[in-house]
Every structure is written in C-alpha cells, then in structure tokens.
C-alpha cells in the first residue's frame, strides 16, 4: 500500500486500482465483491468475443468478461498476475479479468477530473473521470456503463 493512503472520511472515495494492459484503471471499491484467482472457466461458444466464459463461484454462475477486449484494448493474457475482479452490477455478479491488481487509493470526490476526449484509445463513455496521482493517471471506470449489454 502506498504512503499517501489516508483514513477515509465520509466525503472521500476509495478506488481499487488495477491494470488493463498497461493502463491503470480504478473502480469504486464498494462495487467490488471480491478479487480472486479462479480461472476454471467454461467457455461459451457463440457468445461475444469479450466473454471469456462462465464460472462457478460458490454455487452461482458468473459471467467472466475480458476487460481488455471489452474496452477495445488487447485481450488479457493469463499469467501469474492475472486476477478476476467480481463486481456487483445491477444485482448481478460479473467477473472482470484484469492484468494485475494495484493499490487502493483514497481521494476526495472533487479530485476526479473530467475525461479527456481520448485516453489510450479507449472509448470515453466507459470512464467516469480521471484521477491524477504522483506517478500515473488512473482512469475511473463506469462499471454499469461498461457492463450494459
């Protein structure tokens, strides 16, 4: 965890950050159910190409989505850093495969800036905003928008 982490106050937001390709992205931590390394995935023929398959997570069937492909970037190749972020979107649990997990950052709401018209070729509407840290920019993802059909 980084040094700049502070105790969150009611006005602060916490973002879990992770890599999709080389892009650092963040999701509001309250959206996340869990992060795991389950990859015993059953492929689903005839589904969209960004769908990796389905997974049994303690008796629930969960759709696993390749976040890289979904955002129009390169597909996420599996290695030791690959993680599965289970998010809760519209009462459904959905797994997002990402290239690696990074820190949890705490920011004030007004620190988030509007999306520049073009970040790394990703469609702007998938982002809620951009967060500037000392090292890098973090794209804040709009999960509900991304997971819309």
């Amino acid at each position: 965890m980084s040094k700049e982490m502070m105790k969150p106050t009611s006005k602060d937001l916490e973002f879990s950050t992770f890599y999709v390709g080389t892009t650092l992205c963040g999701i509001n931590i309250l959206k996340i159910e869990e992060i795991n390394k389950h990859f015993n995935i059953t492929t689903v023929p005839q589904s969209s190409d960004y769908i990796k398959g389905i997974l049994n997570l303690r008796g629930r069937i969960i759709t696993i989505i390749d976040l890289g492909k979904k955002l129009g970037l390169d597909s996420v190749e599996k290695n030791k850093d690959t993680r599965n972020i289970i998010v809760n979107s519209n009462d459904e649990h959905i797994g997002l495969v990402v290239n690696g997990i990074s820190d949890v950052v705490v920011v004030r709401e007004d620190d988030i800036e509007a999306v520049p018209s073009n970040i790394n070729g990703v469609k702007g509407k998938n982002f809620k905003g951009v967060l500037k840290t000392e090292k890098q920019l973090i794209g804040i993802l709009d999960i509900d928008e991304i997971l819309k059909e």
Partner: protein
Amino acid sequence: MIETSERIFDKPGDKPQKTNTSIRVNVGLLDTLMNLAGELVLGRNQLLQGVSSSNTKATEVSSQRIDMITSELQEAIMRTRMQPIANILSKFTRVVRDLSQQSGKSIDLVLEGNDVELDKTILESINDPLIHLVRNSVHHGIEMPDEREKIGKNPIGIITLKAFHDAGQVNIVISDDGRGLDPQKILRAAVSKGHLTDQEVAQMSEKQKMKLIFLPGFSTAKEVTDVSGRGVGMDVAVTNVESLGGVIELDSTPGEGTVIQIKLPLTLAIIPSQIITVGNERYALPQVNLSELLRISAAEVKDKIERVGDSEVVRLRGELLPLFDLSKLLGIEETYIDPENNDELLERRKNIADRRSKKHALLKDGKTRALNTFEDTKQERTTKDRRYHAESALNIAVVATGTFKYGLIVDDLHDSEEIVVKSVGRHLKKCTAYTGATIMGDGKVALILNISNIAQTAGLSTVSESVKLAKAADKAAETCKDKAALLIFKNSGSEHFAAPLNMVERIERFKTSAIEQIGNKKVVQYRGGALPLYELSQVLDVESLPEKDQQEVIVFKVKNREIGLMVTPPIDANEVNLEMDESTLRQPGISGSMSINDHTTLLVDIFEMIKRLNPEWFADET
C-alpha cells in the same frame, strides 16, 4: 421462467426481488422439512466426527446417510413448490360458460385430475396456452346446437380438460366432440396466406396438414373477433409449452372432435440430463429431448452416413435423420489427437465420412517433407490401420422436440445425471443455444443445450423439413409403384433383352439334337406335348442365334398355351425402375428400351410377338 425459479432459490442477503409472491404450504410438509433439516445436521456432525477421527467406516456410513437425506430433502422442497392444477383448471368453468353464451353454443366442461400437482412456475406459464386452446375448442371446435342436432350429435357439446401423471411427466389433455380439424380448409388458408405453395401442399400427409395450424400467423377464421382470428394463438401456445420443456400433440378426426395433448415436466429446477462432451467442454442435454443414443463404428461410417446436397443424413430404421455436428453448430474449433505423437491438431475433415490422413496435414508445410512422411505412414499402416480406430466411431444423440427430430454428432457420451438448472448472466441471454447452466460434480460449469433453438440455428425449419421428408417418402412410393420384375436375357452376343417376369412359366435347357424342325417351325417334346420354339430373329430385326449343343429356352404361357423362346444365357431376374424410352428403338414386338446394368436392353412385348407369329391364336378376339 428459469430466471424466476432461480430467484426463489437465491440465498437470503440478496436484494429482495420486486415480486413479493407468497405460496401456501401444507403444515405437514413443513414439519417433514424441519425433521429432515434436523437429520441433516445430525448427519453432518457424524461426518465431521468420522473425518476428524479418520474413521473410514463411520465416514462412509454418514455419507450414505447424508446422500439419503439430501434426496428426501430435495423431494420435500420440491413439494412445497407443487400446486394442484385445480388452481387454474377451476377458472375454465367460467371461461367456457362466458364464451359459450357469447357465441350461442351450449357446452359442458368436464374437469378431471384436479389434484394433479405441478411446479408453481410451470402452472403460471401454462395458464395462457390452456386458455387459448380452450377458446379454440369453443370457437372453432364445437358446432352450433342446431347444426349438432342435424348430424345426430347431442346439442350440448362437451369439452374435457384432463390432467394426469404419466412417465414422470404431467399430461394435460384438452378434447372436444366438435367438428374436428378440416385438413382442406387448413390447406386453403395456408396457401392463401402464402405459408405454402400448392406444390408443397400436394406432398403433405393429413397429419402434417393439421400441424399447419401451429404456424405463426395462421388462422382459418374469416374475420377477426375478440375470441379468435388473429392467428397468433396456436403458435404462441406451442412456443410457451416448448419453452417449458413440454410438447404439444394434436389429433383430430373430422366430424368427431379434436384432442390436444400437452406433456409437461414436473419441475424445471432439477432436470434429468444426458452429459456429453464436445471439444473440451461438457454440455447437458435434457433427457426430455433425447430419444436415443447411436454409435456408428468407424468401419460403418462410410456406409451409414449419406449426403443429400450439402447436408448429412443417417438412415435410422428406414427413416432419414438429418445430422448436425454440434461443434460446427456451436462454432467450436474441432481438434483431434494425432494417434502417433499425441499432438492436438485442428480438424480438417470436410465430411464425416472422410478419414484422417497424415499426408494432407503435412502438405501445407512443404511437399518434400510430405512425400517422406507419406512413405513412413505407408509403412506403419501395414501394421495398424488407423482408419478403423475405435476413436473414429461416431457418437450421435438423437434428439427431438415437438416438431423437430435430428441427430447431433458429439465427441463423447457420459452418464445421465440430475442437474440443477441455473440461469446465466445477462450478457449470455442472447446466446439462444442454451437454456442455462449447471454445476457439475467437480465444480465446473456445464451449459444446458436448448434443442429447439439449436434446430432453428441449424436451419432446420419444421414445415420445409416435413415437406422434404414427405417428398422423399412419395418418391420412394412412386419408385415402388414403377418397379417391375423383369427377366433379362441375351439373344446373341451383345443384344440384351428383357421380358416381364410374371409371364414366364419356366426356364428350360434342351439338347439341340432334341429340337425337331417341322416345316419352318421348331418344336421340342416337352411334358407330353410339343412345345413350339421361336427365336427373336423370326420377329425382330436382330441377329439369329448361334449354333450350340444346348439351347436355353424361356417358356411363356400366353392364352393358356405354352411357347418357348430360344435365348442365350445369362438369364437373370431383376427388379428395375421402368424408365422406358418408347421411341428410339421401337419396333413391332418391342415395347421400348431402357438401360439395365449399363446395357441398353429392349423390352420384348410377348403378346405382340406371338400375335405376329401365330395370328390365329388371337383371331377369336378380333
């Protein structure tokens, strides 16, 4: 509907669903559930004890106990969801009474099997199709009272709604004693609405004609009323029933009434399924859709699988069954394990009947290498013929939904299991090939196949398919009709002839010395009489017979007299299609020519021949 059943099973802690439905459960049943829960806890304690003390025996006993309790618990929980069908059937008394008053008909409704229980979700979704079918019976089936009296029926029509259990399914039968379905009227409506062409119609069976009423947009009603005539009904009823995993069957006798039978599964939450493998994944095939499993051994594949156009079929007990490769339908890349070095390679076969060959695999890499390996494999093949490996056998699951029946080629067949149906996420809703997913014993997920949707993606359309089959059947009947048994023989070296077998009495062989020449006629002593002998050259413009020691004679019986025709062997009986060319080689005594066994064969007209030889035999006729 699976979605709703799934929600009921969801764990507490989920956001409550907006539907706040409740269900009435017998207290006795609740007590049973409570008891079973108690036993389950007991079983768990025993199991934990057995495991911690590493007592295998105790563990085994308690695992058996838990197995039993789980089954009982499953059944009891299922029963809480079961509702008597009377809940919906009782409504029909009113529906029928209102409708019959509106239309001026008098109808009695008979309800049977009120205590049959069905899963709540099924019960809810069967309501609409049932209402439609009963309305149909009232509106189209039952005649007006005076009309009924005229044809000697009781002026009061009877509609029966009967529910009963049969073979693990619930059957609902709607029958009426009305006018029944008129196939001709259905046909006219189908043609005028453009569902079918006249040609297609001509080739349909009565049963197929009746099934036309299940077509979307079909209606025979001349005008649209608030009861019927919009043409959406039957199609929707069938779709609803099929989406519940059920089947609709129709039977009707004109003038006597119509019987519609609906077969439904008891519950949707747990279904028995056949587990199959395609590619690297397992799939569940609902047992209701499965009619049989076929295995065609590697040696037989070539003979049994036939190609019609670009589709493959298998002949199953005289019926042509369309075949589909499930991996192709689903778009899975087919692979196979090379038997020599265990590499997984992409499938390259185009036809099922094609055998695998190393030669083509390597041609892609380079020709020289291909040649070398070709030599190698050639040598290996002398020891073991790869083409007839047991692995090359075809596994076919023959599946059927109400209107479709086809064979699915799968990689492997496994056990039949009871699976718990779970719904899939919203991103997969548009993949219509699956009804849901299930969790297998090892924790991995398997998809449940939707047989009727797969048939549709495969381009298997009900009507066209049945028409096609009807055409094939008609063609078969036609060829049967035109098939004739012929006796095929030769005159001299290269002239082939045939005569109808039914006119032939016997085939004899005489010594040439026994044949007597009297005037210009030849006779032979035969069965205490003289048998006149002729040869074809006497009548026809053909070569005369060569001299031989023995002479083969075909004995014909015409007008109760026997005559012998001298011929040259081989003489062979054969059943052939009568596709005669009646012009090219036509001459007196020959009715035409056709091709039999790649020889142009002339069909001898025995009557005309004898008429020319012995006109006096026919004198009394003219």
